[in-house]
């Protein structure tokens, strides 16, 4: 290498070689960087710009903070969209974490078919949300499989779970806790395998039972894992869209009971063509998610599983 460098220096000089490498480097990242700039960075500023106008099909007059004031007084947004999103997050996150951790601990045992079980638990996370939602609608229909099973257990429920205002959101919570538990399981599995084996050996020598070992050793040592899973789960939950759109429709029915903030934004933009207003909703949601992430970071430190 040293010889080659010396030779090259004589021919073209080290400076030109470096310059060439730099130019090629910029050339290779130019297209991806232009893409990220145009479709990720520019939209941040442009969203704020749009949010300051009464922008419907065409750009209307400048309204300053007008859209934000309207949003502040928008009762559908606060009473339904925000409320549902927070309720959804408050319930789905602990459920996902508990399910994910349980599955991870179970498949982390040294037993046969482990790979198969992991795959089986993980697969619902990979299937299309549209397919899963239509399957769930079918199973939770008034004469669906779930009500049939309940009937045989002596509990009579004759309504479709997604069609009733009181059960629609809880059903979506249950559905998503199930489908995402596989992903959470993989995160926890990574965290579990990062715990050194000798810790367990020491516990075994001390005569600690399985439950005690889990409670006193595994669970506390998983702290970085808990944090990481919580962050991913909360960020995902605050942006829930698919299941509400698929099950409740763009209006988040029945009677707004499945309306989430992102679905509300979608509906304002694509349904009502109120781009200025929808942009304001987007800016507020972004600020909120960003703040939540920062708070989580300050509370728990940096996200690390390994």
């Amino acid at each position, binding site marked *: 290498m040293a010889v080659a460098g010396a030779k090259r220096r004589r021919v073209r000089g080290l400076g030109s070689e*470096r310059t060439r*490498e*730099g130019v*090629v*480097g910029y050339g*290779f*990242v130019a*297209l*991806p*960087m232009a893409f*990220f700039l145009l*479709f990720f960075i520019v*939209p*941040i500023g*442009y*969203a704020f710009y*749009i949010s300051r106008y009464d922008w419907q099909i065409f750009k209307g007059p400048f309204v300053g903070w007008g859209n934000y004031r309207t949003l502040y007084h928008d009762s559908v947004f606060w009473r339904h969209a925000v409320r549902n999103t927070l309720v959804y997050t408050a319930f789905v996150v602990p459920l996902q974490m508990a399910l994910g951790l349980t*599955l991870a601990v*179970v498949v*982390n*045992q*040294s037993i046969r078919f482990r790979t198969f079980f992991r*795959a*089986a638990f993980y*697969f*619902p996370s*990979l*299937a*299309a*949300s*549209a*397919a899963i*939602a239509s*399957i769930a609608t*079918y*199973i939770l229909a008034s004469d669906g*499989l779930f009500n049939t099973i309940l009937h045989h257990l002596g509990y009579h429920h004759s309504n479709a779970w997604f069609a009733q205002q009181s059960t629609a959101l809880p059903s979506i919570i249950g559905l998503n806790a*199930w489908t995402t538990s596989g*992903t959470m399981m993989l*995160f926890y599995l990574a965290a579990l*395998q*990062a715990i050194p084996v*000798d810790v*367990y050996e020491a516990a*075994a020598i001390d005569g600690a*039972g*399985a439950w005690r070992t889990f409670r006193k050793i595994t669970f506390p040592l998983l702290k970085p894992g808990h944090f*990481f899973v919580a962050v991913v789960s909360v*960020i995902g939950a605050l942006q829930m*869209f*698919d299941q509400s*759109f*698929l099950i409740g429709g763009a209006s988040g029915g029945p009677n707004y009971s499945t309306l989430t903030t992102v679905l509300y934004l979608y509906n304002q*933009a*694509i349904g009502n063509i109120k*781009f200025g207003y929808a942009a304001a909703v987007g800016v507020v949601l*972004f600020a909120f998610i960003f703040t939540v992430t920062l708070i989580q970071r300050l509370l728990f430190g*940096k996200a*690390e599983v*390994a």
Partner: protein
Amino acid sequence: MDVEGLPPTQAVEELALEGEAAAGSGARGIPGRERADRVRTAIAYTVMFLVAALFAIPFLWTVSTSFRTLADTVAGFSLLPRHWTTSGYHEAFHTFNFGRYTLNSAIIAGAITLSNLVLASIGGYAFARLRFPGREVLFMLVLGTLMIPDQLRLVPIYLMLVNWIPAWVGHVGWHDASFVNRDGVILIQLVSATSLFLMRQYFLTIPRDLEEAAKLDAAGYFKTYRKVMLPLAGPALAAVGILTFQGTWNALFWPAVLLQDKSQYTIPIGIASFHFAYQTLWPPLMAASVLAIVPILLIFILFQRYFVAGVAAAGVKG
């Protein structure tokens, strides 16, 4: 967000290799523990089989219903179809256009996957190997895009696709172009930070000697990328390709925003619109759901470990 402290790549790499390091089973060889262990194992097996069954039932029920007649779906409970029929699939394909939707899904997911492979591997190679001023800052910027949620981008991107992009391509002679359609869905997903990250991380693990040899050969940087690096990057390319395909095949959000013409619907959008129009026409709806799931299931069975790499990359979002 610092790159070195990024979460679970290492642990998950072990997972990808099907690492058999079994934590939580350290009690072997301690007297009096064997029976307790056996009980524990039995419980674990039972729980796992029950949960696996619970996870599988909805899918099996879906397949079973997709082969039923409509009358059969309301005739009370039966595990298997009373009369097996493929009319659900026939209707889904011909009456309700899912043949077209499947093709659209394949085109969109295929195009985005291909462009991710090309752009992420070239960019990933440059970020991993070539020295140029501002490289680290630019890479941070790429990772930073993971923090920008889609809902913030919805309105600006929609308006850019309506106003800016058609005007720009008009300047270069492509008149009356529209991007509130399939082309727009592809355009805004040409490359992802996750793909670029995965490629860069993989290139970093390749020993430098190989390129040095190529340099002595006076091979250009593109030739080094093409002839030396790319052939070695098989596993990373597979991971990027599979994850991108799975994500875009399933995607609902951007297609829901941009696809307005029914002839361009993807399977998920087709399912959504069918679902609202024909609530209880279960057999074709379940057939469409099977159609949405089966390609991903096959890819998953064949290439399981690459999906785990994707979970590692999702960790970037933390």
